[in-house]
């Protein structure tokens, strides 16, 4: 199988990237094909015997895009070369800035020439181009100054008219029609000046140029803001080191990170970035995982510790066995998460698109009708054209198109920098409506690493031997705690067990070498299996009252004793509950534990409600019950056992360490093991939605205020008209406001 990366040209949106993926996946022998839209890149793995690079390129070109293969050498192990990807975008932005400056110079000169005398009485104009003495020269000069501006902004005309002729007018159509109307009208007037010199004062070359210039400013600001707001992705990509020190037997050599494979050993020295995800096989040190968790305190790492690619070694020397490379690394998953969030449109954004789609034809109709009415009531053609162009320009809903995406990009970027990963704009939008947070106990409110604290038995060795033999066959955290305690007691060999059965959520059973039935599980499980545990009732109640989980062990129908297991409550849990409640969210503890233990934990952390003795398969039903009661439910779990409940909830929130995240199942992933991030995520969502609403209001406000004035509604009473130039300026101002308002979100505390 061969893996290649292609630069793809012509993609604009998620539909384009999906199309490229679809067509390439149809090629024979293609194992995987994934497009990274922000980087315009396709990564494809295929069987060289069944298809070729040329086949891939041809397929993509037939779909209407361009494709060029990228050299493998030099690219990072994360599949991208951060320096190159941002460099091409920077070049594009620089070119756009140069065009803008050129347009501004010509438009400025044109404005000075045509309107300077109105603002500054006695404004000096050479006689050869004076409106009074040489009106034709003045007109021609204005036209010459306007043409470069219109040329540099030609994309508005090509896109705008193309959309109009296809029956799908959009924002570019408004700009194209307005600028074209002003220019053509002025061109015709130029030819008439010879016979009617006064017509030199009815030219609108400056309107056409200034409209295009101002709209270009708005588009540049949009592109610039998108680059700034996508800084989260760029910063994450820059964490990927290009090279690594490969340890091969006794030799060490620096190699490209992209050549490292799982199983290789790499050396991480103090001050260096960990090149890839792995496990420490030798050495010790401290690692700064701030890029992942937002926490700048270094974490001690030793043999057996997991390390994440992109994190920084603070001190010590670590020999790391690589476990994940390429798209499988945690960093790649985070980047994909953030990209997904920025690409998928929130419902409110789709609403803005729909409104824009209807708005443009309505505005065109208003422009035509207003111009026609003024013409009919006796105003001249020039007046009517001025009204027509003013309405089109002021109504340009550019700001509306920016209102939502800029806020979402900034919001998700801000979340990512705090270790809060939000999967989609839709998740960001729904999270602000959450009214109930249901939190799983084990691994969420507690550390998820239970330990044995009590062994009550007449023969502890016999008890733990049977317990170890059974629990060594289970992956449950409680089973691991029993095994760990048994090892500490010197019991490390499990007796052979046949007929092992895991009765979900309650206990395990099997048969030992003598054919005797052995059981380990909850007191309820024991009673169901007919084991008499009455002699342990007092101890069981006592342990449960302290919030501990009780495991009973039996041989045939005889109880061998009980084991008390305790899972420590996270240090941040109580504070987190207070923070969640302080923002008006009801907190619910959901656990399979018995009522007494659940209430003990619930009292410690201060939840509002407790739902106990719930089997894993019933957790989703609990979520549904609250939803049926009209609540918007956020389910917070460790993402593994809680998958159905996470999927059922309005917002599924996974909490866990970097290497254990079940990113694909959750809407929000909290990279820190800090429940305070639940409140932060909801606060972030509320701030983002507030910003979007502010943006939409201002975007509409400008249009709603401007359109009536542009139609001349105030002219009969107050003599007020809106010149196309002022309209273009106001429209750009609204875009600037919307973008600035979104960028303010970056400085908010959550």
């Amino acid at each position, binding site marked *: 199988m061969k893996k290649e990366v292609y630069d793809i040209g012509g993609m604009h949106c998620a*539909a384009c990237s999906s199309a490229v993926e679809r*067509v390439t996946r149809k090629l024979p022998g293609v194992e995987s094909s994934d497009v990274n839209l922000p980087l315009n890149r396709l990564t494809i793995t295929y069987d060289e015997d069944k298809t070729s690079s040329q086949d891939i390129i041809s397929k993509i070109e037939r779909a*209407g895009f361009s494709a060029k293969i990228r050299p493998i050498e030099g690219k990072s192990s994360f599949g991208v070369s951060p320096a190159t990807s941002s460099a091409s975008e920077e070049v594009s932005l620089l070119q756009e800035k140069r065009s803008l400056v050129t347009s501004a110079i010509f438009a400025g000169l044109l404005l000075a020439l045509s309107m300077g005398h109105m603002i500054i009485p006695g404004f000096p104009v050479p006689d050869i181009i004076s409106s009074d003495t040489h009106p034709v020269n003045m007109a021609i000069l204005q036209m010459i100054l306007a043409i470069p501006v219109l040329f540099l902004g030609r994309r508005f005309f090509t*896109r705008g008219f193309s*959309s109009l002729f*296809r*029956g*799908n007018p959009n924002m570019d159509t408004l700009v194209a029609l307005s600028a074209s109307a002003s220019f053509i009208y002025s061109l015709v007037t130029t030819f008439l000046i010879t016979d009617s010199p006064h017509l030199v004062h009815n030219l609108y070359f400056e309107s056409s140029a200034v409209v295009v210039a101002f709209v270009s400013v708005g588009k540049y600001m949009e592109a610039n803001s998108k680059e700034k707001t996508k800084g989260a992705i760029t910063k994450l990509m820059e964490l990927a080191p290009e090279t690594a020190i490969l340890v091969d037997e006794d030799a060490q050599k620096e190699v490209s990170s992209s050549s490292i494979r799982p199983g290789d050993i790499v050396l991480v020295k103090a001050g260096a970035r960990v090149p890839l995800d792995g496990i420490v096989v030798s050495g010790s040190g401290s690692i700064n995982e701030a890029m992942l968790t937002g926490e700048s305190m270094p974490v001690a790492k030793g043999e057996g510790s997991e390390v994440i690619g992109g994190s920084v070694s603070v001190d010590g020397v670590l020999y790391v066995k690589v476990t994940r490379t390429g798209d499988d690394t945690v960093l790649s998953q985070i980047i994909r998460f953030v990209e997904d969030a920025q690409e998928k449109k929130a419902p409110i954004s789709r609403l803005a698109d729909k409104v824009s789609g209807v708005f443009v034809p309505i505005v065109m109709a208003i422009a035509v009708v207003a111009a026609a009415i003024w013409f009919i009531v006796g105003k001249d053609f020039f007046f009517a054209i001025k009204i027509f162009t003013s309405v089109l320009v002021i109504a340009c809903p550019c700001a509306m198109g920016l209102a939502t995406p800029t806020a979402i990009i900034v919001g998700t970027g801000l979340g990512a920098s705090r270790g809060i990963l939000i999967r989609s704009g839709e998740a960001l939008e729904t999270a602000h409506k959450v009214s109930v947070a249901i939190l799983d106990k084990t691994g969420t409110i507690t550390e998820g690493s239970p330990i044995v604290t009590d062994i009550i038995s007449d023969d502890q060795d016999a008890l733990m031997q049977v317990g170890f033999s059974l629990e060594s066959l289970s992956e449950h955290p409680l089973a691991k705690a029993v095994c760990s305690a048994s090892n500490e007691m010197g019991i490390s060999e499990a007796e052979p067990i046949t007929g092992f059965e895991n009765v979900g959520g309650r206990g395990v059973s099997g048969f030992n070498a003598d054919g005797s039935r052995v059981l380990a599980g909850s007191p309820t499980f024991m009673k169901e299996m007919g084991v008499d545990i009455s002699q342990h009732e007092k101890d069981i109640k006592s342990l449960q009252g302290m919030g501990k989980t009780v495991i009973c062990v039996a041989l045939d129908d005889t109880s061998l004793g009980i084991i008390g297991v305790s899972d420590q409550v996270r240090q941040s849990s109580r504070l987190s509950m207070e923070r969640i409640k302080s923002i008006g969210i009801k907190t619910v503890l959901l656990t399979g534990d018995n009522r007494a233990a659940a209430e003990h934990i619930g009292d410690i952390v201060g939840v509002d409600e407790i739902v106990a003795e719930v089997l894993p398969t019933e957790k989703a039903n609990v979520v549904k019950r609250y939803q049926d009661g009209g609540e918007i439910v956020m389910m917070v779990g460790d993402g593994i056992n809680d998958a159905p409940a996470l999927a059922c909830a309005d917002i599924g929130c996974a909490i866990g360490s970097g290497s254990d995240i079940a990113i694909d199942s959750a809407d929000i992933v909290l990279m820190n093991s800090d429940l305070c991030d639940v409140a932060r995520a909801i606060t972030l969502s509320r701030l983002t939605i507030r910003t979007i609403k502010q943006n939409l209001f201002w975007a509409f406000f400008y249009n709603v205020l401007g359109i009536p004035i542009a139609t001349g509604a105030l002219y009969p009473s107050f003599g007020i008209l809106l010149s196309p130039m002022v309209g273009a300026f106001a429209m750009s101002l609204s875009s600037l406001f919307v973008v600035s308002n979104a960028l303010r979100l970056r400085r908010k505390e959550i």
Partner: protein
Amino acid sequence: MKTLKVEEMHCMNCVNRISSALKAEAIEFEIKLEEKIVRVDPENVERAIDLLDDLGFTASQ
């Protein structure tokens, strides 16, 4: 004209790609992005569906 539903149409770039491809094959067409439909003359429906497939769109009648 026969109507084809093309759910994956998203933006003007999609419209432009479809237009260019259908024009190149001299197929008469009409595109409504808002409704996500492409109308083609009845004799060219199958060809249009194949062309749309080549472009990465799934068209249904």
